[in-house]
């Protein structure tokens, strides 16, 4: 497990739980949650960042060793997402960008077409692009070709905690994409995060379930353990499958 590194862009992650900054009862909970969960990447909506704030700037609560993943939440078109990404970069938030284009305020479903357009533009500009999408294999391959650094399919609609409702579709992505697949949105329980990792997701992004828990710090720890358990199981299963292949020969040995 020590050598099990996930590389996205120019960063090597040894922890496969990504987290978010939304919905917390207080920003002071964020550094505690990060410490407890071991999360090495956290997403923050650019629209929530207030550099000139007299009140408080959310960025001050994110330790320097945690990679910032600004997101384009609020964007309704590719053009807006592109502009938000550029503003984020100018504001010193780094080159990572999670593209979130939502034109449906009722279910908050990502708009795959606009997301693809934004990815094409931003990848060319050197951004490390992580598009948030509905799991759709042909689209994922297009994102890959457009230069996306990872693809982030939703497990269930944002904030619903319903788990891996789109599992069979995500499995196709895992099987066929060469870029990392990060399950984002819908994961409500550590067991669901473990399930995503067991099936071979490269990472999961969890916000609501941690931020709205009575004890976000403890829930962050629980998700970290679950992600590690799922990842370990996934790696262990691979080893077992190769063992099975070897074991098959004695069964037909009498034919030799």
């Amino acid at each position, binding site marked *: 497990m020590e050598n099990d590194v996930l590389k996205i862009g120019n960063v090597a992650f040894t922890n496969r739980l990504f987290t978010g900054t939304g*919905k*917390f009862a*207080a920003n002071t909970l964020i550094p505690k949650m990060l410490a407890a969960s071991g999360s090495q990447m956290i997403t923050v909506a650019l*629209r929530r960042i*207030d550099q000139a704030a*007299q009140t408080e700037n959310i960025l001050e609560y994110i330790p320097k060793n945690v990679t910032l993943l600004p997101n384009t939440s609020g964007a309704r078109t590719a053009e807006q997402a592109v502009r938000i990404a550029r503003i984020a970069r100018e504001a010193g938030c780094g080159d990572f960008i999670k593209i979130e284009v939502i034109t449906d*305020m009722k279910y908050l479903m990502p708009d795959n077409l606009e997301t693809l357009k934004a990815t094409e533009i931003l990848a060319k500009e050197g951004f490390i692009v992580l598009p948030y999408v509905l799991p759709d294999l042909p689209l994922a391959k297009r994102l890959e070709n457009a230069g996306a650094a990872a693809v982030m399919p939703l497990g269930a609609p944002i904030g*619903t905690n319903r788990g891996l409702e789109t599992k069979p579709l995500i499995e196709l992505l895992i099987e066929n994409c060469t870029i990392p697949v990060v399950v984002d949105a819908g994961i409500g329980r550590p067991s669901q995060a473990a399930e995503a990792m067991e099936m071979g997701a490269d990472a999961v992004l969890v916000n609501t379930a941690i931020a*709205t828990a009575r004890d976000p710090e403890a829930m962050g720890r629980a998700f970290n353990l679950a992600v590690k358990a799922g990842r370990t199981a996934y790696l262990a299963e691979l080893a077992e499958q190769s063992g099975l292949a070897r074991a098959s020969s004695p069964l037909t040995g009498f034919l030799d």
Partner: protein
Amino acid sequence: MSFFQTVEQYQGFDYEQFFQQVTDAAIERSLAQEKPTATDFLNLLSPRAARHLEPMAEKAHQLTVQYFGRTIQLFIPLYISNHCSNQCAYCGFNHKNDIYRHKLTIAEIEEEAQAIARTGMQHVLFLTGEAQHLTPMEYLVEAAACLKRHFASVAIEVYPLEVEEYRRLQQAGVDSMTLFQETYNQEVYKRVHRAGKKMDYHWRLNAPERAAQGGMRSVNLGPLLGLAEPRSEIFLTALHARYLENKYLETEVAISLPRFNEAEGDFQPDYLVDDKTFVQFMTALRIFLPRAGLTISTRENAAFRDRILPLGATRYSAGSSTGVGGYTEIKVAQTPQFEITDDRNVEEVAAAIKARGYQPVYKDWDLII
């Protein structure tokens, strides 16, 4: 089709008879639905459902935390003019009221904006009466542009506009629109709106839809509770919200729950909504419309606002003045549109929100023009 068809559909509906037939079992079933129907919502609005208030509150709390987190978005109203041609029986700005009228100049709006910005507020809602000849579109556009220089989010609560006018304001930096129908009951509407353009029920009813068509990110509806039978008003407000949600997927829909409050003049409302019923309405709305914003203004007193915070509310006004020029030394037209009962400043409201284990959010939007 417009929402008016739904209004008509329920015109002859006998709410009282429906409510009489609601059983505890029906309420429990409605409460357990993942996607409550209009009938489920009516069950939850029934007087009998008051006995189920605790489980309703638990569900409302859980849904609000799930979709909005433990956060409350803060905004501040800014009255830029109290000129008004309407005669709304209940309103302090009623044309017939002999009050000092003033329209802020853009320079005065600038001063007010600076004073508000010093409080840390980032979301502003600017308001006018309905006097198009005195506060025309050009003035609104200038006001919007001026405010956008100081705030992350600028919202309007002005007289109903045309689609293209909403679009112009959107381009000038306005992202949200608030407009209360006041009452969905056409007879009552006619009775309390005695003069001016506001007499046109349809023009007002369809304004939120025009705002959505004009590109407003968010529209905020509301009945003025007290004018007509409140359960039917809440019911139609929620159906109006759902109508807009379904038709305009890109638009966020929010609801305000203004309860009648003593303004200038001596209007006596026909109905009073007590605290318990208010909470029932709020929790029922959250259950029926899980993702809709719920705005609670300073019409409600401080202690009550602090207590209802976990039950479905998502947006609070704070540090409000409902007179024109209320934030600076302009102080020319201090007669309020309605009386404020939570007169704490922004800092105090924020501290109270934190004390309840919630995060006061000053900025969660930025319109990139």
